[in-house]
């Protein structure tokens, strides 16, 4: 089992530092492949990370890096032909004395896994319109989750739905509970989505690009809401996003992914102020900044993200990497080098190989 971080960086607000000795959720060597006629897509290829109680883990990366598939793998809801080919996903049980369980050992459609989905680990999707049913009121959809995981009566579930809507800041929850998703704006839909996810009081919330479809002022509202709920309930959050700004503001710990690999891990401050992996360094340099001088060019990363079928040999980043070592990076995949228990980088520039 991985250890708790030894060094807690000073940027943390009180109450957000890890309290548990072991992670709440620990993903080890996760591999999720898509076997297609054209070949195998290694969407997630040996990814490991830890989520600690009460903290936010940001998973960042560009399209195709496997961040969403990692999240779906945790819940066992990877769409076919995707299949989890290996790894372990350890979930700490509610009572500290019980041993952690490996979610991958549970049958995907079994009762145990169904009890975990929604109740222990809830998911908020990017596109709220696509994740609601059009034919049921939002109240009905929230109640469904409550009734599935508890013995509450219909009336009690409805009261709880109204309470949840109020909690996530939906105005007039008594009236809104009977509305359909299409009657709501994007920001409200995302709030309802959050209410639905919180319906069964989960311990872990996975938010997959929760604000990507929203305008910037609405995004600010939703991020604020997420922070408030996390504080109130001591939720642990996995935040998946491509937006480095959102990660910087929300996350305590960060995993940077590229083509199915976790290339770098660490506390948020170190990822932004002392990035180790050439990809992280280049990515940070290429972000447009609101503080920039008008009309300044950006640093770029050569080339583009390879097609999933044409995955480069060796380190997946080597064709675009300014520091690539010929005869090494293009041949061998770099191992993950732990700089500290909470800090790791997959690159030959670090560790014994250098």
């Amino acid at each position, binding site marked *: 089992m991985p250890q708790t971080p030894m060094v807690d960086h000073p940027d943390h607000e009180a109450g957000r530092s890890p309290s548990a000795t072991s992670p709440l959720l620990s993903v080890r060597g996760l591999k999720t492949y898509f076997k297609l006629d054209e070949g195998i897509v290694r969407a997630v290829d040996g990814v490991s990370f830890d989520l600690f109680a009460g903290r936010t883990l940001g998973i960042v990366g560009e399209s195709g890096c496997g961040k969403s598939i990692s999240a779906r793998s945790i819940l066992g809801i990877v769409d076919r032909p995707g299949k989890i080919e290996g790894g372990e996903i350890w979930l700490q049980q509610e009572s500290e004395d019980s041993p952690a369980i490996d979610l991958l050992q549970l049958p995907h459609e079994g009762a145990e896994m169904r009890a975990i989905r929604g109740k222990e680990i809830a998911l908020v999707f990017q596109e709220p319109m696509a994740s609601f049913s059009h034919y049921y009121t939002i109240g009905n959809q929230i109640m469904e989750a409550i009734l599935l995981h508890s013995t509450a009566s219909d009336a009690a579930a409805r009261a709880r739905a109204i309470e949840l809507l109020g909690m996530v800041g939906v105005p007039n929850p008594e009236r809104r509970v009977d509305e359909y998703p299409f009657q709501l704006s994007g920001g409200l839909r995302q709030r309802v989505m959050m209410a639905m996810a919180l319906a069964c009081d989960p311990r872990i919330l996975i938010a997959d690009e929760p604000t990507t479809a929203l305008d910037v002022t609405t995004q600010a509202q939703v991020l604020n809401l997420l922070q408030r709920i996390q504080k109130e309930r001591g939720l642990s959050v996995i935040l998946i996003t491509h937006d480095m700004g959102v990660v910087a503001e929300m996350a305590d710990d960060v995993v940077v992914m590229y083509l199915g690999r976790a290339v770098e891990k660490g506390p948020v401050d170190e990822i932004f102020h002392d990035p180790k992996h050439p990809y992280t360094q280049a990515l940070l340099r290429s972000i447009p900044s609101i*503080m920039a001088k008008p009309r300044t060019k950006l640093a770029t990363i050569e080339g583009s993200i390879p097609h999933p079928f044409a995955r480069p040999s060796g380190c997946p980043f080597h064709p675009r990497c300014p520091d690539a070592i010929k005869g090494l990076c293009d041949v061998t995949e770099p191992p993950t080098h732990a700089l500290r228990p909470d800090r790791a980088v997959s690159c030959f520039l670090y560790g014994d190989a250098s």
Partner: protein
Amino acid sequence: MTLLEVKGLKKYFPIRKGLLRKVVGHVKAVDDVSFSVKRGETLALVGESGCGKTTVSRCIMRALDPSAGEVNFTLDGRTTDLATLDGKGLKPFRRHLQMVFQDPFSSLNPRMMVGDLIGEPLLINGMSDAAERRKRVRELLDVVQLPVEYMNRFPHAFSGGQRQRIGIARALALNPSLIVADEPVSALDVSVQAQIINLLLDLQDQLGLTYLFVAHDLSVVKHVSDRVAVMYVGQLVEIASTEDLFHRPKHPYTEALLSAVPKPDPRAKTERIILQREVADAANPPSGCAFHPRCAHATDLCKQQRPALVDLGQGHQVRCHHAHELDLKGVGSLA
């Protein structure tokens, strides 16, 4: 020298109801918008979804017919109001106004090869000689930094960034004076987005292009534009040089917008201004200033009277009753 002058532009969409589809009201998508763009500069049009920024750009391109107002376009010293022209009259102007679209996946015909895609505007505008066309396509591919071999491939073979380069080459084919770019980088990944932003900046320097850059991402806007116009519910609320607008905003909405942008630095402890409620409905805008229900500084005056766009000097215009009294925070004033 002014290339484009938009004056009192309005676009109302009728709301129809009932069996006879009677007009019961209007969505005022664009309501009295005026600005001008100088030759060789970039004006960014920013705002949140539904604010009317795309409608403005479409009225300029005459993909939509404006309900009122002028779109004055100056070509070789002669100014023409595009808003008054019919299809035939517009034809000679079309080649001078080109568009770059947001979605590089749906804006290229999947059945056409890259060479034909870029050559199409040339063919339509009378370059009938195939060899001549191929030569121009080669030049254009070179300009957007794509290998010439790509000419005989189909769009599906390309990544988002490469497709956007093809879209840009297509827009450049006829040597336009004005390029309207509607969210040209928002569908791209960060690492690719930077390449396209740089390309747009380079092309402007090389070819003396003028851009109307429609975008919602303020960080991108900061990198590309000379001046910025902010829209809210169909109206311009503020227009200023990029430097002024970002560092010395005068409209509370601009201030809120700037503060809401997540900063890619965990040490930047900024106070996000959280706007209450939702964006006003353009079919039923609030009385007075459209922003007053969400504004922290709103007074009775704001509820009753619609503010006019006033000039505070140096081309900094703002639509706010209290622009003179308010002390608003820009991005520079962050600790």
